[in-house]
């Protein structure tokens, strides 16, 4: 129980969760705001990615080398990232360096230089990176599954590398500037920090970073659901003896849906860790794969995500591996989970939760994730009791309600056996 130790502060436009701990000198923080990557752009998600990547390429006051020196000379970490509907940032620094590091964050967000030369370099590097991904089996299997499950106006939809390369060829710096102007605002601006931190002092520094930021009224126009799309997609690649296989189905459940935790626990029992069913059978007993697991992905408080299984298979075991995985999936749906599995995974999740909170980085991330998923602060203490209260009947009910093995889409990428 640690929620009582977290101090919640409201500044003019941000909510801050601050947790002082006994660690010496180190402070970690996560933050994010809604950017709503929508609008009249060829691909708003790609534009957002490039806009965010431009933020550390220099500001109106300092070029990227001076900015980098400011951080590197202190050994501080600061990253900005595009995260679907949100733009996020992470930092870690010594306590004494906080003003300087948060100062850099403010400069990058508020006064980016958007230099044409830097944009051109970034554009070409991004094209190269996309080209490199074309021969990556995991990327190709995931992308094919993604396209089978989502329409192109869903936030979980990923544009293909080929399409992105074509869009990048025509992308202009003015689009980046316009995106920054329109989408960087204080919509649900949340920051979580933990470590050797003075909450009030931190809030004052944050106030300076986001001075003058306004909340914009927006409504989302994204599609809300994916497509149930049974079938199979094969992406043939040369010279790849290991094949990546993905299986998936959209789930109409958001993080705030009453079935979410039961579905999370159900998925964890199937493929959440080394002692889960898939690893236990397809890897440990049958020796068919090195890597296999199941997870819920792309779930936010606004948009439902999808259930997926991934498995990597050498050519000679491709057929057997897929059959064995599908067999476990069917068994999980038809026979459900057992009381002993339920009890085991409940204690696993409770212990894991404690372990994940053992660093300032883990604490800040947990607080931030909790807020971004739409939960009240109390959920940080209530999470484990809520998991512990789930019954086998509830877990089995949600499995049967949402997962029909016949509706699963199968995606394979690699060099197919002769």
């Amino acid at each position, binding site marked *: 129980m640690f929620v009582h130790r977290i101090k919640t502060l409201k500044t003019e436009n941000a909510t801050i969760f601050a947790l002082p701990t006994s660690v010496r000198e180190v402070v970690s923080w996560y933050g994010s705001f809604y950017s709503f990557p929508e609008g009249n752009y060829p691909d708003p998600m790609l534009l957002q990615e490039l806009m965010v990547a431009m933020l550390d390429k220099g500001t109106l006051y300092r070029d990227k080398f001076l900015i980098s*020196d400011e951080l590197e000379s202190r050994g501080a970490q600061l990253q900005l990232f595009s995260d679907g509907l949100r733009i996020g940032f992470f930092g870690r620094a010594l306590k004494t360096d906080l003003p300087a590091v948060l100062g850099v964050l403010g400069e990058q967000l508020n006064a980016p230089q958007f230099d044409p030369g830097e944009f051109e370099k970034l554009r070409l590097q991004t094209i190269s990176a996309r080209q490199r991904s074309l021969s990556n089996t995991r990327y190709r299997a995931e992308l094919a599954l993604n396209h089978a499950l989502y329409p192109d106006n869903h936030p979980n939809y990923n544009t293909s590398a080929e399409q992105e390369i074509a869009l990048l060829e025509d992308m202009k710096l003015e689009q980046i500037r316009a995106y920054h102007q329109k989408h960087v605002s204080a919509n649900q601006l949340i920051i979580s920090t933990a470590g050797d931190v003075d909450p009030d002092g931190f809030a004052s520094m944050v106030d300076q970073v986001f001075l003058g930021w306004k909340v914009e009224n927006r409504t989302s126009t994204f599609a809300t659901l994916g497509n149930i799309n049974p079938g199979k997609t094969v992406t043939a690649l040369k010279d790849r003896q290991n094949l990546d296989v993905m299986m998936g189905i959209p789930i109409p459940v958001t993080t705030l849906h009453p079935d979410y935790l039961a579905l999370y626990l159900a998925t964890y029992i199937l493929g959440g860790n080394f002692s889960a069913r898939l690893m236990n059978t397809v890897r440990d007993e049958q020796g068919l794969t090195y890597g296999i697991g199941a997870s819920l992905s792309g779930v936010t408080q606004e948009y439902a995500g999808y259930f997926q299984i991934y498995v990597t298979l050498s050519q000679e075991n491709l057929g057997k591996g897929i059959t064995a995985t599908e067999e476990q999936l069917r068994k999980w749906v038809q026979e459900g989970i057992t009381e002993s599995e339920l009890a085991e995974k409940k204690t696993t999740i409770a212990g894991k939760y404690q372990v994940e909170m053992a660093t300032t980085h883990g604490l800040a991330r947990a607080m931030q994730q909790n807020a971004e998923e739409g939960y009240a602060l109390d959920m940080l203490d209530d999470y484990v009791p809520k998991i512990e209260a789930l019954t086998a009947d509830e877990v089995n009910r949600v499995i049967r309600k949402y997962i029909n093995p016949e509706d699963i889409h199968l995606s394979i990428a690699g060099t197919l056996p002769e």
Partner: protein
Amino acid sequence: MLEAFSFIETSGGIEQWVHKSNDLQVLLYPDATAPVVTFMVTYRVGSRNEIPGNTGATHFLEHMMFKGTERFNKQAGTSVFNVLQRVGAMVNATTWMDRTNYFELLPKAHLPLAMEIEADRMRFARLSPEDVTSEKTVILNEFDRGDNEPTQNLYQTVWSMAYLAHPYHHSTIGWRSDIEQTTPEKLRAFYDTFYWPDNATLSIIGDIDREQALAWVHQYFGSLPKSTIPRPEVTIKEPQQRGERRITVRKEAELGSVMIAFKNPEGLHTDNDALDMLSMVLGSGKNSRLYRALTDQGLTVAAYAANSRHRDPGLFYLFGYQAMGVRHAKIEKAILKVIKEVQKNGITQEELDRARQKIKTSMAFDRDGSYNIASELNEAIAIGDWKFYTEYVTRIGAVTVADVQRVAQTYLIEDRRTIGWHLPK
């Protein structure tokens, strides 16, 4: 219970103890910041200790250790993963060239459980033929996954070309044919040679009571005997390289990469401290020389440098990921020019200070959580001295700009150089 142990020394707040009866080393670092503990067992055996025909044995054995013992096994419902993950432990193991480690990051109340399991599998692994057969295909899939990646392929090929006689020639996972031909008997012989208390170090980092932790070590590990089988020393020295070596890897991909490697001295050699600084100056961050000369000029998508320190001489290497439309020769030339510039004019004091500060801060970040400390200790043990970790800041503090220029002139030379290109087919 302290009488069962000899106290050796303290360094950087970490205490070293040795069990009197079996020479098991124990490193303790109490830190009550969070109610968790990292328990790590480091065996001083890695792919360095393998011979042709048995490559990959260390890694194969690491997998087999999760198949358990007579007490902890799947058939009994007490598999290592089941028992430990049930209490929320983060559990895993890794194999590298000079060491193998097994670790648990878990709530402090369960530390005795982790010790009980690690002690049991230190001497009582089952290594059944059925388990070896089923795990073999798992490892072959792991091999294929690595082989899929052109850069990993290039990295390994460069090591193989740089080291022709020394076991660093082969990768940790081993050659595919050796994995296929592994037998339970080979693994048993390897296990019985290297898995003993006197070839292991326990690192116990986190919310612990010193005396209680040692009492548990004695309870679980104290009855294990020390080895009676002589462990073969690795005596082979890599013959002197005479001239540059070149290798190409042709593998299907959209874009290639360039790796330029130089033999460095053995891990604990002080010249490696200067090479560490040099690797940071060359390859870490936007102010690094490789970023400025390659990535910022559009030659590479990313470029970095690393000084890979090992028990025996390893490699200092530079890596560039080709950008669209740029020839490999141009990337290679640009990297060599960066090196030449350091050899000729050295680095600035500002560059050195920045590199040092990054490491100092990184060490402070390590103290935020127990796993990082154990992990760093593990690598220090691997190269020959756990205090390498606690003394590292002092070591790099002694490095001067002149040292960095000297090591660049001494080690980054043609007669120590191996160049590899990944050429997309």
